[in-house]
């Protein structure tokens, strides 16, 4: 049995090798340093047509990560809100959440991506007739253009002021919490925080003036110049992934909260805990241990589903590397292998992080 399997693999490898030789296709990873020669419409790092295929790989990976991280964030926030809404006593809120979940989880994701891209964003007016929000943000079929903040010298003072405020926030909150637990005293929090924030910004302004300028986008010819452009492919993919995954997360959250027995809420109520405190200290911590494992699968699904980007030509790793690069170089074995390995490592890293978190909140004892 094992021998047959081994034999089959040997034959497969030999077959691939002889076929590649016959078609004059190189093997090995040398192509990664060759010139790519094509442009990419969204790059988080410097990239030109003269960059290498290796650079293409990095750009694609970063784009995949970008849409995945934002997607996971929005899907989680929306999913939790919808999950709680599904349990609301209010008929309207409850049914709205239900209708949302049933629509978004029952329409294929690929269609949803196409809907947002071809159905909505591509049908926005051209840049010349763009929808303007206060003449600083523009919505058109070329994407969303927002003003960029440009910092001149002296901005460092403001960064320092921000850092100081953040440190004050953390320290004051800690102090208030410790004092509250130590002797029940209520420490002032908002007033000293506000003082620190205003004072540090004031000092920064005195020292450096206003070293910021706003780069407001303006229409030049057929398109906008200046500002930051968020391409429609990104917006469409992000919308579709977040809205679709949120529907699944909503059901997971609902099931998690329902898994906490009614007796737990009653005991908390009998102890005089207000509903919100009971939810935060008693129900959610117990619901989380039911929620985390399936939530992890949803995060993995979202990341893997982002490869559907290829349908609307968002430059993710599948689109620019397993797509464009593959057609140019032709080394399918290496390219697909690299791409699969990258997804695999992304998934394993996510799983690992979530499992660590899950282990930390796991229950002790058998009687649960």
């Amino acid at each position, binding site marked *: 049995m094992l021998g047959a399997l081994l034999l089959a693999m040997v034959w497969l490898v030999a077959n691939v090798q002889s076929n590649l030789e016959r078609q004059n296709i190189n093997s090995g990873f040398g192509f990664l340093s060759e010139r790519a020669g094509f442009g990419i419409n969204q790059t988080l790092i410097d990239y030109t047509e003269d960059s290498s295929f290796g650079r293409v790989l990095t750009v694609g990976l970063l784009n995949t990560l970008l849409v995945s991280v934002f997607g996971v964030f929005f899907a989680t926030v929306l999913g939790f809100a919808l999950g709680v809404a599904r349990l609301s006593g209010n008929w309207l809120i409850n049914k709205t959440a239900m209708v949302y979940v049933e629509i978004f989880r029952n329409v294929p994701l690929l269609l949803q991506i196409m809907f947002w891209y071809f159905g909505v964003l591509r049908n926005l007016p051209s840049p010349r007739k763009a929808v303007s929000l206060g003449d600083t943000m523009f919505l058109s079929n070329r994407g969303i253009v927002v003003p960029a903040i440009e910092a001149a010298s002296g901005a460092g003072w403001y960064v320092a002021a921000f850092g100081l405020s953040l440190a004050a926030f953390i320290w004051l909150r800690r102090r208030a919490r410790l004092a*509250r*637990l*130590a*002797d*029940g*005293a209520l420490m002032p929090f908002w007033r000293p925080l506000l003082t620190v924030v205003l004072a540090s910004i004031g000092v920064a302004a005195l020292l450096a003036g206003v070293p910021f300028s706003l780069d407001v986008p303006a229409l030049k010819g057929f398109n906008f110049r200046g500002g930051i452009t968020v391409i429609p492919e990104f917006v469409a993919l992000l919308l579709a992934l977040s809205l679709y995954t949120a529907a699944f997360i909503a059901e997971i959250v609902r099931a998690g909260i329902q898994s906490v*027995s009614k*007796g*737990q809420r*009653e*005991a*908390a*109520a*009998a*102890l*005089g*805990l*207000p509903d919100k*405190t009971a939810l935060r*200290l*008693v129900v959610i*911590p*117990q619901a989380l*241990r039911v929620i985390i494992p399936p939530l992890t699968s949803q995060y993995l699904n979202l990341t893997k589903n982002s490869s559907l980007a290829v349908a609307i030509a968002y430059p993710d790793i599948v689109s620019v590397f397993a797509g464009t690069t593959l057609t140019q170089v032709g080394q399918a074995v290496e390219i697909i292998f690299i791409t699969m390995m990258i997804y695999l490592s992304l998934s394993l890293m996510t799983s690992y992080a979530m499992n660590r978190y899950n282990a930390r*909140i796991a*229950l*002790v*004892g*058998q*009687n*649960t």
Partner: protein
Amino acid sequence: MSDPVIRINKMNKWFGNFHVLRDIDLNVASGEKIVICGPSGSGKSTLIRCINRLEAHQEGDIEVEGVTLDGSLKNLEDIRSNVGMVFQQFNLFPHMTVLENCTLSPIWVQQKSKAEAETLARELLERVRIPDQADKYPGQLSGGQQQRVAIARALCMNPRIMLFDEPTSALDPEMIKEVLDVMVELAEEGMTMLCVTHEMGFARQVADRVIFMDEGEIVEENAPEAFFSNPENERTKLFLSQVL
């Protein structure tokens, strides 16, 4: 009888169309111990759950320590901080240690400091005779120990009244006594107690009054001696012949 701490007047409650409690009248004096018994489905649990409004009643009045239970949140907070409750299924919080279970309400509701709350909790755990389990999780304790933690947890709020909803029904026989002993001690210290229980020995030992309920009504109430030796109502007689 001194001024009653609990006053229930013509109280009625329905679950949907089902009339669970019919015209309940009950006054409880400070320090009084009342045992409520009756066949299952007779409304005895529902009655004591109405006293801290885990269930809302629809008609009549309930007054606890002079505060009326109407939907007002302020009144509800007042009442819940004065009334402790122990459940049949313990309902300890499994993700918190025994000590955290006990200090939750003192810290978050009564705004006590953590140190103060822990001292109080350890004192009460001592009283229910499990001081050495403070740092364990509920899942690591036996049923009897868990129920004693639940009693300590309720006592940490320093309540004036304690409600017990079949506190020994989910326990193995050999653990019933350890819980009842704690309850007897509590009774001897003068706590006002309402217990739904089938432990007739406990009723004889501590109760000032035994109440028999059937089909949502208080059928009979009497001092334990008279109640057990000379029940007046036919339904009471039938019930006692089955449990004694």
